[in-house]
């Protein structure tokens, strides 16, 4: 057996003897100009650090929806004509002392209403509250109908005025609309413009802050203010994003501690953390330059980049440490490590990038942005953790104690001591009994997981705004509005295209009326509204309130008259588009798909050249389209991710058997992850798509690390058990470290006020940990049955160079340090030339 001492005699060990002209062009370019590289990095960090202060947080409505889907295309095409549908804020002003017929209350309402009227981005012409002139009452008298504004023209706050207001409200049809059923609150309905008058897109953060400051200004012991609407929701989301900084700090702290526990070297630990943070700074700095903004989804990317940086940095450092432990000078160690690891590390990062890249197939812009931003992050890691880190390490070095520790188990074994208990435990899985047991258990888990995962739902399952937690202020406000006002916040709208000026034609309205009635009988539909329904109601009103006239009468003059006086929103300006509103009791996928299917069938049976029933608008309509896209993307993405991973494994391993061993644990994790989603009541949604891609894309790294080393040894004729042990010693520890740091990096999201971030955190942490367990336990068990140890007749010394191409190209190799070492041990006499031959990728 070769002792490390022999290695020390290598001429390259001493700095003075080292030939700085050796190594690749890139290595020479970087390491022979270390100071320049450092200065360049410093300059970049300063510039991008300054840039990163310009990163904006935003969450545009259109970014979160699949704009290419025909439903959304229909919606976007008619968006301008669907007034007040897509984007409005509803502000309920509550009188805590009783009913709204109270002079003080009305004064506050008026003041607030006036302030909101002036906010930029408010569609002033269509803003509605008790104080706007468009809010009117109508009454039947012996002579006919009479009406007027709800707040009397001569309103003076006196008892008579308040009594008149109370009477007008009863006659206004606004109870359940603008006025709560209990008449203790009223609503300010604020439609928003897509762009502010100066042409800039509406700034939700600012609007939300302005609304919050109005809330704190007007909320008092007597007045409670509740705000709902997409703009407020996004504002709250962005406010929640700011808390992310705390989680980021926690993630940094914990991963640092873990890394220190692993290396026992403060110097190098801080260096790795520093480099990973530099990566995050660069990434954030690049975003404004490339015109990207952070949204609630992509804000998680820096966590991932940091965590990936930490694990790759740790591996890099591990290599250098072991070299230094063997007595090399730190510069030489850094260069050797760079030489061995640069390409491997690059490939590993490219592997991660595959996981991100697959996300690009989902035609939802937030996801594509996330994929792009993550790719930028990974690209940045190539510079910071593959170049900057070794150069910095070449200056700083590692503590001697840590360097010795890094070779401890190797030394221990050489000293004839027993293998570590944990390694011996893992080794059991290469034996027939344990392997069979493990596979049987996995089969049971897979079966159970599969059965449970059949119940996996698509879409959001919680009431209110699913992005936020159920007990958030927004969802409390939303529940308040749903409880005190008729219409729920889940609105599904069908658009009906008609010839110009024909929207009130009887034959068309008759169809709308039929669909309206059919939809109301579907499960999950609370109520509906349409011009047809208005005609029924208005005929009752025009017939002195007699319910016997509740009918859509085939009387065109009457229909035209009612249509002329219909409120905004039921049809467009040139009377060529009707809207049928459906208010739902929830936005579960089942409810939405039932609705969508029905309308599709109805449209197929009733669409003509003149009249077309088009899906879909309203938040639930958009969600229905999103669900359809997500459901399809979920399947496609699994296909692509696994396709990419399998291809990658095949290229790396050159063995379908090894590929099966590597991929099956991933599949088990994917199945169990779906079961976990069922158990935690998480539906497949926009937020869970990246989880699946990232979980598998990054998760395969573990299998790659372990399998490539294992395979390398087995191809030299070593037994499975021995090969696995070698793999564990070199990469196993790092696999565990990686699994833990990545899991910690994402697990902190669980405390996010944003529900989907918490969901993503749970699921990703689960996938990272379980993939790691799979790679360490199930992989050797499968290998036992699939990778029969072959007896190599030739001596190991010949075997090694005869299989150069069989060696993994990749990431795995990251740990190659150990691999090199073992080959040296197996082939005593081999010097650096042999090492280079064994690792063509590194030279």
């Amino acid at each position: 057996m070769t002792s490390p001492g022999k290695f020390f005699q290598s001429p390259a060990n001493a700095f003075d003897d080292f030939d700085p002209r050796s190594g690749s062009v890139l290595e020479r370019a970087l390491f022979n100009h270390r100071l320049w590289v450092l200065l360049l990095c410093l300059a970049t960090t300063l510039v991008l650090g300054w840039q990163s202060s310009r990163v904006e947080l935003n969450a545009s409505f259109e970014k979160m929806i699949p704009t290419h889907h025909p439903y959304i295309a229909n919606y976007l095409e008619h968006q301008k004509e669907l007034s007040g549908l897509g984007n409005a804020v509803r502000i309920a002003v509550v009188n805590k002392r009783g009913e709204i017929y109270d002079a003080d209350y009305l004064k506050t309402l008026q003041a607030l209403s006036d302030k909101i009227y002036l906010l930029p981005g408010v569609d002033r012409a269509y803003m509605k509250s008790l104080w706007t002139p468009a809010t009117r009452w109508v009454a039947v008298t012996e002579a006919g109908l009479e009406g007027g504004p709800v707040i009397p023209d001569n309103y003076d706050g006196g008892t008579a005025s308040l009594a008149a207001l109370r009477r007008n409200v009863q006659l206004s049809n606004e109870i359940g609309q603008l006025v709560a059923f209990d008449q203790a609150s009223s609503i300010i309905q604020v439609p928003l413009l897509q762009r502010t008058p100066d042409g800039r897109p509406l700034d939700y953060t600012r609007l939300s802050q302005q609304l919050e400051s109005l809330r704190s200004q007007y909320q008092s012991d007597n007045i409670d203010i509740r705000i709902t609407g997409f703009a407020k929701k996004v504002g709250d989301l962005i406010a929640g994003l700011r808390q992310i900084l705390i989680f980021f700090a926690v993630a940094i702290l914990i991963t640092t501690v873990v890394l220190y526990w692993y290396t026992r070297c403060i110097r190098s630990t801080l260096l790795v953390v520093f480099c990973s943070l530099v990566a995050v700074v660069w990434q954030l700095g690049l975003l404004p330059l490339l015109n990207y903004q952070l949204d609630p989804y992509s804000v998680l990317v820096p966590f991932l980049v940091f965590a990936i940086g930490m694990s790759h940095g740790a591996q890099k450092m591990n290599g250098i440490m072991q070299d230094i432990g063997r007595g090399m000078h730190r510069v030489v160690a850094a260069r050797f490590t760079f030489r061995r690891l640069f390409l491997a590390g690059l490939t590993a990062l490219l592997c991660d990038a595959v996981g991100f890249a697959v996300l690009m197939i989902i035609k939802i812009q937030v996801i594509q942005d996330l994929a792009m931003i993550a790719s930028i992050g990974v690209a940045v890691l190539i510079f910071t953790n593959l170049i900057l880190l070794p150069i910095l390490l070449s200056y700083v070095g590692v503590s001697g104690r840590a360097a010795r520790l890094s070779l401890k188990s190797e030394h221990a074994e050489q000293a004839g001591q027993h293998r570590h208990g944990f390694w011996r435990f893992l080794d059991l899985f290469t034996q027939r009994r344990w392997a069979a047991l493990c596979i049987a258990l996995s089969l049971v888990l897979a079966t159970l997981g599969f059965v449970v995962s059949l119940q996996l739902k698509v879409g959001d399952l919680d009431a209110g705004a699913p992005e936020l937690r159920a007990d958030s202020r927004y969802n409390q406000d939303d529940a308040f509005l749903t409880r005190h006002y008729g219409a729920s916040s889940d609105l599904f709208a069908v658009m009906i295209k008609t010839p110009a000026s024909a929207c009130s034609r009887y034959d068309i309205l008759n169809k709308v009326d039929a669909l309206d009635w059919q939809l109301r009988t579907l499960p999950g539909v609370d109520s509906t509204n349409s011009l047809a329904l208005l005609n029924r109601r208005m005929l009752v009103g025009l017939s002195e309130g007699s319910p016997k006239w509740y009918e859509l009468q085939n009387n065109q003059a009457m229909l035209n008259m009612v249509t002329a006086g219909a409120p905004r929103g039921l049809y467009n300006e040139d009377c060529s588009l009707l809207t049928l509103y459906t208010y739902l009791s929830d936005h579960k996928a089942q409810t939405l798909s039932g609705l969508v299917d029905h309308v599709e069938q109805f449209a197929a049976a009733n669409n003509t050249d003149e009249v077309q029933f088009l899906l879909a608008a309203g938040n639930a309509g958009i969600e229905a389209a999103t669900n359809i896209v997500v459901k399809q993307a979920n399947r496609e993405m699994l296909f692509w991710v696994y396709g990419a991973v399998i291809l990658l494994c095949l290229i790396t391993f050159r063995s379908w058997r090894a590929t099966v061993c590597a991929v099956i644990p991933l599949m088990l994790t994917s199945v169990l992850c779906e079961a976990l989603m069922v158990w935690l009541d998480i539906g497949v949604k926009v937020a869970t798509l990246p989880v699946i891609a990232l979980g598998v894309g990054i998760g395969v790294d573990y299998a790659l690390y372990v399998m490539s080393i294992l395979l390398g040894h087995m191809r030299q004729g070593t037994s499975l058990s021995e090969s696995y042990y070698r793999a564990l010693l070199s990469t196993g520890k790092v696999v565990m470290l990686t699994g833990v740091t990545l899991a910690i990096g994402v697990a902190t999201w669980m405390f996010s006020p944003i529900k989907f971030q918490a969901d993503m955190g749970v699921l990703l942490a689960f996938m990272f940990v379980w993939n790691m367990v799979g790679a360490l336990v199930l992989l050797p068990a499968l290998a036992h049955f699939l990778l029969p140890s072959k007896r190599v007749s030739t001596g190991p010394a010949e075997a090694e160079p005869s299989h150069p191409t069989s060696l993994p190209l990749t990431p795995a190799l990251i740990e190659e340090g150990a691999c090199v070492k073992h080959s040296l041990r197996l082939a005593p006499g081999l010097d650096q030339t042999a090492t280079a031959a064994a690792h063509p990728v590194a030279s």
Partner: protein
Amino acid sequence: MNRISQASALLLALYLPFATSKCLAGPAAVGVPLNTPAMGVPAAQNGVLIDLARAGTRLVAVGERGLVVFSDDNGQSWRQASVPVSVSLTAVQFVDAQQGWAVGHAGVVLATLDGGEHWTLQLDGARVAQLELDAAKADQATAADPDAAMIRVQNAERLAADGPDKPFLALEFVDAHRGLIVGAYGLALQTTDGGATWHSMMGHIANPNGLHLYAISRQGPRWFLAGEQGYLARSDDDATSFSQLDSPYEGSFFTLQSRADGALLVAGLKGNAFVSNDAGASFQRLSVPVPISFNDATRLADGQLLLVNQGGMLFRNSEQTGAALLPLGKPLGKPVSSVIEAADGSLIVAGFTGLQRLAQPATAASE
């Protein structure tokens, strides 16, 4: 209680396959409501229901889009009947536990022989217009007033030209053969053979302005009609001809009901109600509790009258209460279009939000 819930569970179980088979048909091309059978809906008792009637101990409610529901457990559970049209039905009446009629929009008259489970179409608006046109032309030859007869023919021609868009609003059947139906713009027809043939009554009811006729009440051979703009009419010859009465009010009347003591109560717009103890010769105003229109009135088993208004308030009136309308229970907070007493003394109300059963309010009423 237990037995009742078991029974309703059984009914539900029987009903469900029926309901699903109807729903499974899926949406088809939308046709003319007059020719389209009413759609089976899962909770038909929550639709807009307009009128209520009793067929023996069975309760029957009719309403929007051809909706007919019936209950054999005093309104605790409801089943939907099969109806050949999907126009709104405005009034329903049974002469016994089996035989009944319902009228509605587009001039439809429906008849049932099985207590309201299955209905057949007896008449529609197009035939109504034709009947009236024929009658107007036939009467023109023998008319005493040729100008009036001419106007009637012109009106009938317009009625035929308009198409079937006008509703019947009330019906009164004396027995399985003879009945009167009235409706919008003074529509009125009579049958003497259970609806097999109809003849127009429009020439025999003094209604020169063609006002809507909302209600019929009968006391033996004496009949009353009430309608739009305070219209009141009486027939002393068993509905052969009607002459207009002097009205105490210019607003519309929506309901007519005879009290146990023979007094006639008429009620309508903005809470106005009147009682006549001399067969309509004179009326005494009842106190207006709130200015909300009365939609319906019914006579309870104990002879009291019960009125409901568009605010969901119930009031009672009897010989004892005189000119007072006494509130019964708390307001329901929603418009009520019709009310009826079930066989067990509970009250069933119908309205825009469906049916509601008020258990045991009769006790309160008799106190």
